[in-house]
């Protein structure tokens, strides 16, 4: 019974970086149509990598919960 809230919290926490990844990808799609947006695209790509790592770590925590 006590595990369930923890799993729910972990899922919630994992969703956050996943949302960021998705929205950065959306932003890159828009920026790729705008000339001169290379720096911003680069930044978004880096943020995607950072969010992916955060998500991976959270999933690892989820594994250890079981």
């Amino acid at each position: 019974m006590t595990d369930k809230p923890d799993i729910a919290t972990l899922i919630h926490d994992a969703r956050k970086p996943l949302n960021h990844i998705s929205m950065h990808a959306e932003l890159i799609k828009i920026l790729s149509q705008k000339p001169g947006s290379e720096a911003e695209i680069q930044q978004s790509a880096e943020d995607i990598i950072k969010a992916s790592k955060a998500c991976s770590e959270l999933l690892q925590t989820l594994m250890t919960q079981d």
Partner: protein
Amino acid sequence: MKTVLLVDDDHEFTTIAARIIEFIGCDVYTAGSIGEAKQWLADMRFDHLFLDFMLPDGSGLHLIDHIRSLKLTAQITLITGHPSVKAALASMCDEQINYLTKPIEADDVKRVLNTKTATHHAQSDPFERHFGCLIGHSPAMKKLVTMIERVAKTNANVLLMGESGSGKEVVAQAIHNASQCSGEQVSVNCGAIAKDLIGSELFGHEKGAFTGAINQKKGVFELAQNGTLFLDEVTEMPIEMQPNLLRALETQTITRVGGAKPIEVNCRVVSATNRTLAEIAQKNVLREDIYFRLAVFPIEIPPLRARPQDIPLLSEFFVHQLNDEYKTQYQLTEQAHTVLSAHSWPGNIRELKHCIHRAFIMADPDTTTLTIDEIVSSPFASAQASDNQVPPRAPATSATTPSAPVKVGETIEEVERKLIYQTLESVDGNKTLAAKMLGISTKTLYNRLNAYEQSTPEETK
């Protein structure tokens, strides 16, 4: 441009979302809590709010309560990262509120921002609006509404014809609102663009296409993709530019200035002119082939004098708008309605709005009544009326040579009455102009007409 407030405590989310919403063409402000959002709402007026469900200092619902207590009309989109609460959110949605689940996509944002607020006005004001913007219940207006309903179901291009101030842009908006298109309405005034820039404005340009073209730019045809393109004053477009427009209309493809690639476009073109059909043909302001492409479904918008039943309603509406804006409680008196209904409004709805605004400014701040003693006609409308209406009729019904001869034994009062009615007839009932021609004040003319109506009502009818 819509002004948007984005309320979410996830700073990274608000940063990315704000950027996406900016690209859609909105002005975006962000808040991380309910308290911060309340501060923004106190200082600024927003068209749309994106609101996280769970915030550090309370629920998004608290902010909705606050918005409703302020009677703000902003659209609200609730955002949640929990798909499990989707059903609960859906149950709260109404005309003002909808929801999105994270991650949000640009298309989702566009969809909620373009939510048509046709029925939304009914909540905030008591005026029934056809298609969210047209006001009136006269037979002429009902006929117009039917025509809009019919044409909205098709993709046909529409040419709106009507006098200046008769509401062509509002009718264009009504057609857009009534149609099932997913795109936006984009308006351009063809008479206001420099001749050299028309191509770029309509079809866009590529970077470096001409001096000053420092970036690529989309034209109005592309911006109105899957929506409505409103070409106002289309007959003022230089005739030598019209073949380019014809090509776009015929092939439904455009090529940006300086570009080589044809781009497919799909939009309904609603164009407008204040010229009559005869004038269009005689003065050679529109090519015949363009006319047939633009006027697949021509709509004649009636002047205000052809729908006098709508004058009281429109007057009340303009007063309501001003009361709303200035937080006042003015109401038109019976006398004001009588004066307004008696005027012929050569400047149409625009002139009526101007007249109400003037009366509102002049209103006694110690009362809540709005009186109108005399209508100050637009000098342009009077000039137009003099140019257009008086000369053709003057020979037959000149003020100095009444068509009905004066009989010996008639009283001066009878002769005067004849003269007044004949003068009024010669200027299509324009009382301001008639009074000017008769050399009396408009007030005197009204007094005379009221006296005649009271003495011999049957005859005056």
